[in-house]
Structure formats: structure tokens, C-alpha cells
């Protein structure tokens, strides 16, 4: 996501001065960055994570370069259906992250707040609203959002429809997990498919969707295998690598390209040494820019993030013979839907499989559904005897993350983990002596 600093500053300045006139330069930057990643990948991170980064940069740069080739979505939008039409899905959350590559998040957030958008709203949504409303970023022909996982979705898309005339399909995801809910959502997905047929003048080929779901099943199995290996081997990556993985799992899932990458990673990771540090299961977003967290989790042999719930947010095998129902079920059973006990249960399952030493939840500013349940999850983890740390901050707006606070909390927690290990080994010693 990083482009030469001077270019970044230049584009930022231009955008702030004349929003709308700097778009070509922004786009050029993305394209150059894609090229740089291919030619000069970050040596310090593993091959798999290098390839992942390049793949995501290509998705964004290539799609934005052809405005008729993509639709806006939110992170839970059904990219499998959209993919059947040869279109890509660019989620507004991820786009906000890419805009912050130009350090524009503060300008866009202030822009949105100054028009009256609530300061307590999620910063991803504020960045996006500011980027579009200020005219800095052009708009596509169509958009789609689910009501999962937050209130911001419907409101942001509706606001932009009114302001910028981008029509969208709204998928209402019921809270309850039962057959009636699945039927209700499956019908909406079918209607959405019909809408895409009309809008883009292409016939829907159901076989493509069957195939996407078969690939999706394989990808999910492969990813679980990769996570298992990542809890055993040191596989250098960065905070942002996990965001890229989340992006892939939501925007490219069901494509052969992404499955091949995960398979490559499974092979590649086996070449790396055994991991002997602390294994962290991460909950919710990662503030990729945050210095202290970077210093502890970017290519660090002592602490490794082995998996995250935002990457693996649904775990069930999907029935490819009933694709719309399968997709509906997947969305409804997503761990971000329904009650927090549902989420705690699924995180518990991940923990049982991967045996992390600790869980860290990052409460992102403005995300009520995540923050509101953090204390309940901590109780659940306590029952499982897994220490858990709750950090507060902002996934994108540096101004809402206080480094001193994060540093103190994190370091105290890591000290506590080390302490616990020491005591355990002392107890072992004691037992041996006795």
C-alpha cells in the first residue's frame, strides 16, 4: 500500500486543494505500486504474503482503472454472484484503507464530519463518505450492501445514492438462524442476480456459481490448514498481511486464483522454521499503521498472529447444488451476525483447533457491534483459560489511537503471558523435584 513518500505528499496536497482533479494521479500511484510489488517485493516478509499483497493491489488498481468493471460492495457482499458477471467487488472498507495509503483519511473524515456525519461513526465509513462526497473519487454504476455487520452499511450506501446517484441493492440479513431466514435471504440474492442481469446486460450462468462455491469450499479447507501450519511455523508477515488475507477471503473467494495462492502458501510455509514464540488469535480489525503493534507483530519471531476471526468468519461447508441457499446460510451463520454468544462459540472453536496462547481484541472506534460484546468474549475466553486483552483504538484514523495507551496495555499483557509461562515451567520443575 505504500508508495514513494514524496508522491504521497504531492497527491495528498493536490486532493486537499482540488478534490476531483487528482484522481488520475491517485490511480497512477496504485498502478505504480502494483508494479513495484511485482518487481521489488518486501524481502523481509514471506513469499506467500508478498504474493498476497500484490494480488490485492492488482485487484484494486485494475478495477479502479476500468470503472465499468466493478461494483461497490461492503465486505460481506456476495462477490461470488458478482464474479459470475465478470465484475469485481470493491468493498468500501478496503477502499478506505487504500485511500489512507495517501494519508488522506484525516482530510476525508473531517470533510464528512463537517457536513454533519456523526464523529462517533466508524472511521472506515467516514473516510469513504468523505472521499466520495468531496468529489475526490469517481463512482461506479452500481453497488450492493448487506445489513451485516453494522448499521453504517445501509445508511452509507443510501446517503451516497442520494448524494451521488449510485443505485444499490440492499440485502437484509435476518438475525435469526433458521430456515425461514435462509429462504428470505436466498430470494433476495436471486433478485439481486436478476438486477445484475438487467443492469449489465449479461445472462447469468448458474454453473459458474456452482463452480465458485466448490472452489470456495476447497479454499476454506485450505485456509484452515494454513492457519494450523501458521500456529506451528514462523511465517513472517505484517499486521497489514492479515488485512489483505481478510480482503481476499471476502472479495476473491470462489476464484481459482485465490485458491491457488492459499495452496502455494501451504507449501511455502512448510519451508520455514518452527515457531516457538507466543501465538496470538486476533479478533476484529488490525490498525495496520500503529507503531507499537507493528513493532510487536510485524516479522517478529517472539509473537505471531496465527489467525483472525475477520478472515475466517464462517466455517461451514457450503452445498453447491443449492447455491443461493448456500450463500444465504453462509451470510446468516457468519460470526458477525446474530448474538454475541454465537460469535463467542465460533471463536471458541477456532481456539480449540489452533491452540493460541492469547486472544487480542481490537475495539475499533465506532464499531458498536464489536466493542459491545468484547467483555462477554473475554468471559468466554476466561472459561477456556485463554488470556484475552481488549485494546481500544481506530483501525484507520491515527488520531483516535493513542500510542502510549496501546503500548502500556500491550506490554503489560505480554509481560503477563511471559510471567504465566515462567510460573508454569517452575511448577513443572517443582513437580519433577517432588
Amino acid at each position: 500500500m505504500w508508495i514513494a513518500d514524496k508522491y504521497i505528499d504531492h497527491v495528498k496536497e493536490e486532493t486537499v486543494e482540488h478534490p476531483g482533479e487528482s484522481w488520475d494521479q491517485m490511480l497512477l500511484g496504485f498502478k505504480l505500486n502494483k508494479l513495484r510489488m511485482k518487481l521489488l517485493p518486501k524481502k523481509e516478509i514471506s513469499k506467500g504474503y508478498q504474493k498476497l499483497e500484490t494480488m490485492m493491489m492488482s485487484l484494486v488498481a485494475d478495477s479502479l482503472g476500468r470503472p465499468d468493471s466493478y461494483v461497490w460492495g461492503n465486505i460481506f457482499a456476495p462477490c461470488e454472484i458478482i464474479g459470475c458477471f465478470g465484475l469485481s467487488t470493491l468493498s468500501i472498507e478496503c477502499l478506505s484503507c487504500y485511500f489512507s495509503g495517501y494519508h488522506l483519511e484525516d482530510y476525508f473524515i473531517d470533510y464528512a464530519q463537517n457536513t454533519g456525519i456523526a464523529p462517533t461513526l466508524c472511521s472506515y465509513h467516514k473516510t469513504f463518505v468523505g472521499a466520495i462526497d468531496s468529489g475526490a473519487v469517481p463512482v461506479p454504476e452500481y453497488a450492493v450492501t448487506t445489513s451485516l455487520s453494522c448499521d453504517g452499511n445501509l445508511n452509507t450506501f443510501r446517503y451516497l445514492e442520494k448524494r451521488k446517484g449510485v443505485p444499490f441493492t440492499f440485502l437484509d440479513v435476518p438475525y435469526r438462524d433458521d430456515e425461514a431466514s435462509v429462504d428470505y435471504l436466498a430470494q433476495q440474492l436471486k433478485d439481486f442476480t436478476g438486477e445484475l442481469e438487467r443492469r449489465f446486460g449479461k445472462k447469468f450462468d448458474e454453473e459458474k456459481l456452482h463452480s465458485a462455491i466448490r472452489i470456495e469450499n476447497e479454499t476454506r479447507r485450505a485456509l484452515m490448514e494454513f492457519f494450523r501450519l501458521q500456529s506451528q511455523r514462523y511465517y513472517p508477515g505484517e499486521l497489514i498481511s492479515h488485512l489483505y488475507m481478510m480482503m481476499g477471503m471476502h472479495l476473491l473467494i470462489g476464484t481459482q486464483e485465490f485458491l491457488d495462492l492459499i495452496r502455494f502458501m501451504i507449501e511455502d510455509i512448510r519451508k520455514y522454521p518452527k515457531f516457538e514464540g507466543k501465538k496470538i488469535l486476533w479478533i476484529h480489525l488490525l490498525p495496520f499503521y500503529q507503531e507499537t503493534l507493528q513493532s510487536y507483530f510485524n516479522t517478529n519471531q517472539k509473537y505471531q498472529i496465527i489467525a483472525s476471526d475477520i478472515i475466517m468468519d464462517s466455517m461451514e461447508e457450503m452445498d453447491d447444488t443449492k447455491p443461493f441457499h448456500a450463500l444465504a446460510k453462509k451470510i446468516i451463520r457468519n460470526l458477525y451476525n446474530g448474538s454475541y454468544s454465537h460469535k463467542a462459540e465460533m471463536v471458541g472453536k477456532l481456539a480449540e483447533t489452533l491452540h493460541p496462547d492469547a486472544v487480542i481484541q481490537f475495539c475499533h472506534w465506532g464499531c458498536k457491534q464489536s466493542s459491545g460484546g468484547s467483555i462477554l468474549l473475554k468471559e468466554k475466553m476466561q472459561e477456556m483459560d485463554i488470556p484475552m486483552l481488549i485494546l481500544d483504538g481506530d483501525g484507520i484514523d491515527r488520531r483516535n489511537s493513542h500510542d502510549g495507551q496501546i503500548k502500556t496495555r500491550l506490554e503489560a499483557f505480554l509481560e503477563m503471558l511471559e510471567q504465566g509461562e515462567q510460573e508454569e515451567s517452575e511448577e513443572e520443575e517443582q513437580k519433577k523435584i517432588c
Partner: protein
Amino acid sequence: MLGYICKYAPVEIFESMGVQMERIEPDVTNFNQAEIRMHPNICSFAKGVLEELMSGDYEGVILTTCCDSIRRLYDVLTEEFPDKFIYMLDTPRITKDAGITLYEQRIRAMIREYEQFSGKIFDEETFGKYLKSREEEQQYALKNSALNIGIIGARANESIKKILDENQANVAFDLTCTGLGRKLLYDDQAVMTGYVRGLLSQFPCMRMEQAANRDELIRRFAGSVDGIIYHTVQFCDNYAYEYAWLKDWLERPMLLLETDYTRQSGGQVRTRIEAFLESLGSGKQRPERKMKGDKTMYVLGIDSGSTSTNAVIMDQDRKIRAFSVVRTGAKSGVSADKALQDVLEKAGLKREDISWIVSTGYGRISIAFADENVTEISCHGKGAHYFNPRIRTILDIGGQDSKAIRLSEDGEVKDFVMNDKCAAGTGRFLEMIARTLEVSLDELGAIALTSTEKIEITSMCSVFAESEVISLIANNKEKADIADGVCHAIANKASGLLRRVGMEPDFMMTGGVAKNPGVVRAVEEKIGGKLYICQEPEIVGAAGAAVYALEKYGL
């Protein structure tokens, strides 16, 4: 008794079973329980409901999947009260047939669970009769003799209506969550389906897909009132989108009012509402004129702020005869008496010589000797216009709040915004930082001007900013540079406020912070224009109050 919070809750079903239904309206002073069980950044209404349920006598509560905070409230409540009927009713966002069918199924499932829980039986026929017997509730009430105000946005508690009532304004309609009278549909062919259809076809809230037709309904409702209060609740973000949209096309004076559902911010809420009503022109009667022996009439304006209490005596020719600035102590009434004595002495007058006294500022209601009180927003407008009629936009940074006010050519308030309930960007914030830097408040501004290195204070929150400053001190940064960084942080906040009212020149800055050259320079840089600052920026509000008093006499 069962509690409920949302208009989509099928209240009548339970009532037909003989259950008392109570709409939960939290009236709490703190979030002590909620802070332990939930994260602080949750909508304050949800936190309030939790407090209410912890203290009230409810057998349960019917929640709907209306928003993220309520979803999490449900999780906490089921943990906390395993023996109560805590029910989450999954309410569709789509109001077409598919939504109606699903909702009916959900409601029937809920009835079965409640029957099991309570042993009571639901009877569809009794329910039908009950529905038929209900009279339609009034949704709309205009009054000819009063200012008519409409309330839109997120749920508004009774205190807003009370303040409106005390100021003789009429609430013509309340379109917030449970504000409208219930609209019930009775269909004798299919009682339940008809009822559910009716529930889902109420005035749509922002979570519903069809909220787009809110625009048309709001346009119709708003057409007949004098002004709109657009209410939002802290950490409920859904309605701010609509405010941002409406303010561009709804041709009605509109006040954005954020509350947090506690009693803590009552004073600020009152100031905003009263200032809004004043800007809509609520007329008052003309008092009797007192003349001193020399045939001169005197009036007095007194501004009781959180940091200083300021008084101004003006004569009938609008000349300031004397003014006084005293520190506000622990009791605002005592400081007001002191300011009164001091200014009378300076002017060589007695209390009886003053025809009319107008009080303003946070402490305005506690000043017993005042004849009338007017909000500091209207008074700053008048005061600014008095000192310089070219002023269109005022930035007032006081001890505990900051505000931006837009004026018309005649000095009338056209729009205003205030900072939220926090110290960021206020005089109090500067005081905190000055203390941390071990300099006096006066020095802080002066040393900022000598800064050589640019330091950015990024934290929005003043508590965070203070620890950021401490980190900077620990990193051995120069005081002057830190001070300058702090001035710029205030300027950023201020420019946000100014932008929200429209940035029309000329600009004026008032309040104690206007004496701080560091902040003044930083604001000027940020807005790219000059700030007019009068010799005594602290007395602008009091001078405005005095002008108000003169206007009582048509002067």
C-alpha cells in the same frame, strides 16, 4: 410488566393478554452499571436502558434488532437476567410482502415463547377485539398562538419537550422512534397479518430499507412548523446521515441537538433550545422605563460564564458606561453579586438606577437580580454586531464550550453549532495543557508565537491530548513548540465548527481564549482570514445582553 423500546414492537399483542407494557425512557444520572458490562462507546440510550432494567421492576423486555448497540444490549441482558423474559424480536428491514410474512412468523414464535414463560394464553379473537377497540392516536398538533416546533431524528426524551413547554413552544409533531401515536391496522379477514402490515408501514425509521420516503414525509410535516429540532443520541450514528442530507434542502430553520440521555448535560441542552427559539423570534412584552435624575436610562447585561462573570452597563445611546470582569468562583450567584457591585461602583450608579437587567451565560438562571435571561448565543450575536456590524461569523471559545455563530446583516442569529460535551477545543483544555507545561495561561499563547518546530497534536480527545503532551515533554520537545501544537489543535477544532455554520466573513473571535495570541494566529492560518477581536473579548456576551435590554424599550 414488560418493557419495550421500539415502535415496531408488537405492544398490542401483549396488552391483549393483559400484560402491562412500559415504554422504557431511561432517566439516569450515570452509566455505572453499563460501563462495567458494556464498552463505553455504545449508544447512550442502550446504556440507559441497561441501567433502567437493573433498577426497575420488569418481568422482561421486548427488544428488536433495531441497531448494533441494541443487539449487544440483548447479549448483556440475557447474561445478566437469565430468569427474565429478555426477547430479541428479529425485525425485517424490508416492508414488502416477504418482510411481512417473515415478521408474522417471528411474532408468532415470540408469542409461543411468552406463553411458555408466563403461563398466559394468547387468543387471536380477543386480540382482534382489542385492536378494534383502540382509538387512533393523534400524530400532529399545531397551535396558532405559539411557536410550532417539530422534532425529528433519534429518540428524544421528555426533557426536550419540557424545555419547549417551559418556553411556551408547541411540539407539533415528534417523528423520533416512539414519538408518533401508534398507527394500527385492523383487517377482520386476517387479523394478525393486517396488524403486522400496519406495524411495518409506520413512519419508517433509518434502519428500514424504505426510509427513502422519509424525505417526502418530512417535507410535508416540516412545511407547517416554524422550526425543526433534529435530535441525535451520542454514539447513535444513523440519524446524522439524515441531518447532513436534510440541511441542504429542507427550507426550515433546523437545530442539530445531540444528547446522551443523562441529566448531566441538561444546561447545555437548555441553552441550545432556548437560543434556537430566540432565533425564531419569540416576542416578549415591553417593560417600564426608569430614568435617573439626569434623564438618562441605564441597562445592565451580565454574563455568568464558567471562568469569568462579566457585567456591562449601557446607556440609552448604546454607550458602554462601565464594565467589570471577575473570576467565577464556586458559586455563580456570589460572583454575579460581586460583578454587579463592581460595575455599579465603576459607573457611579445604584441598583435602582438600572431599568432592566438581562442575564446570560451558563449561570444565567441562578442570577436572582436579573429581570430576564437570554442565552449566550443570542447575546454574543448582538454583542458582536454592536462592536462591529460587518461581522457575519463568530467564534466563541469559552471556558467550558466553544461555538460558532452565523449572523445576518442585522446581527440576528441565523445558525449556530456548539462543541459536544467534552473539553476538546475549549479554554479548559488550554488551562490543562498550560498546567502540564508549567506555564501560566497568558504565557502559553505568547511562547507559542516563538515556536520554531512544527509539532502536531493528533488526539481529538483532551484527555488523550494531555497524555500526548506528556509524551512530548518526555521526548524533550521545546515548550514553545508544544504550545504552538496545542494552539493548532484548538484551531482545527474551531475551523470544523466554523465550516459547519458556513464560513462567511468577516470573522470575530470572542471569549477569554481570544486573548491568546497563539490560538488567534493558528485560527487565522487555518481559515485564511483575519479575526476581528475587540479590546475586551470577554465582555461581548454581557454587552449583547445589555443591547437586548435596550431593545426591550425599542432603543
